[in-house]
């Protein structure tokens, strides 16, 4: 179930690179097997050593709101009932150079600001053709 946006709104096109991030129910980041460099979003090749073997590193899922916007104008008819809604950019506490986009599930659109402490939660979405997503989302730590 999606709590901010409509059930038929855009989902990630899952591929080999991003599958762990969107389906595992954990914040798994791409880490180069050769040199340990973390890159997000994941890429085909390590930008530091050009290695092509990767592992994942798990974040604690604790973070801080780095930026945000509140969307008032629905850019698509599907979003007409969802506005206004907030979108946040979260910097991970344990990987501060990694920034992850999401929605805040336990605050209204006007309740977010830069600097708020948040933790990752997951929205489980099952599509009609049986695909299962676990989309990372956020809750303000009270």
């Amino acid at each position, binding site marked *: 179930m999606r709590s*901010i*946006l409509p059930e*038929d*709104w*855009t*989902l*990630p*096109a*899952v*591929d080999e690179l*991003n599958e762990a*991030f*969107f389906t595992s129910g954990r914040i798994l980041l791409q880490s180069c097997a050769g040199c340990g460099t973390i*890159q*997000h*979003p994941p890429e085909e090749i390590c*930008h530091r050593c050009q290695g092509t073997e990767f592992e994942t590193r798990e974040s604690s899922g604790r973070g801080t709101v*780095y*930026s*945000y*916007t*509140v*969307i*008032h*104008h629905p*850019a*698509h*008819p*599907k*979003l007409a009932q*969802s506005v*206004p*809604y907030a*979108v946040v*950019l979260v910097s991970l506490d344990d990987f501060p*150079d*990694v*920034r*992850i*986009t*999401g*929605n805040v599930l336990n605050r209204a659109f006007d309740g977010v600001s*830069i600097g708020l402490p948040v933790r990752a939660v997951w929205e489980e979405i099952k599509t009609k053709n049986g695909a299962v997503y676990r*989309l990372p989302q956020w809750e303000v730590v009270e």
Partner: protein
Amino acid sequence: MHRRTAVVGVGESVYYKRGGAKESEFRLACTAIRRASEDAGLALADIDGFVSYRDERNTPLRLAAALGIRALNFSAQTWGGGGNGCASAVAIADAAVGAGYADHVVVFRALAQGQFRRFGQASGATLAGGSAAFTAPYGLASAPQTMAMDTMRFMHEHGIGQDALAEISLASYEHAQRNPRALRYGTPLTREDYHASRWIAEPFHLFDCCPENDGAAAVVITTMERARDLHKPPVPILAAAQGLDYRASVGAYNAPNFPTAHYRHVGTKLWERAGVGPGDVDVAQFYENFTGPVLMAISEMGFCEPEELDEFVSDGNIRWPDGRLPINTSGGNLGEAYIHGFENINEAVRQLRDESTCQVEGAQLSLSVSGPLAAPGSAILFCRA
């Protein structure tokens, strides 16, 4: 500093609000190109190259056949997500003409958003791939929405107020009041109107956002040598630059120097090549997709520190005729028309032919900066012959 090639002709179609053009986008392109070559004193058949950007639909193949081009010697377009390509498209023509690959290259953009997909509308696709997979599912689905995120962080880091955004919009609207080509000619904007306008995506109000329009604009580039025999005084290209900082194109807001408008590197290279600095520029056109990214581009191009932006743009400092640096003197994307920024190239040229409706007296150096926050950035500096 090269002055090897010059703009010798500028032209445009009538500009329309979205859906207002009765003729097709292709015919708008033909009109702008015909007027630019007439302005130069060239026959259409003499044009032998075409350059554009961002998946221009009106291809050189169709244009060359339709316009009776004697022989096509060169065609190209730049990469990139949007209006970041205006200046780099002119730079490609400059390189081609300088290298002798073609003699008279047209650089143009035709865009009729009333006939094709609107830029402000999200696709609403079932699936988003690439870096959009990390943003679109959360409701960042159109340019004002995605660019609001960068702008909000930029304002937070540097203490930039909403009035600094307003100043960009107010300058464009004020300058449009003197330009009969401008779609906002006769409809001034007040600071009160700006602040009272509805939010699109915070921190962008309605008047922070470019409109969607129909029209086409074009210039003709040739060598300085050939330019001497043509109608109008040539406007030489002093320098151009396009590019990116280290890994600045990493997606989903993960560039190491986030937030960046992609103009630090462009600025460094441009001033180095031109042998002048931002303080030497007399007049500048800054592509306004949204007002906030213009502020980012102004500071990244080296005009001031981000912390100085509030002061740099306020008190009429960016307005014609008395401002320290008049910007968007035709009205720009916001006030003249959104021809994907190419009208700003035409205006930069007009300033050096004393043809602007907000003419900066005796202007020697005229800058045009393409779309901010879309990568790679590009900018071009014209000088007086």
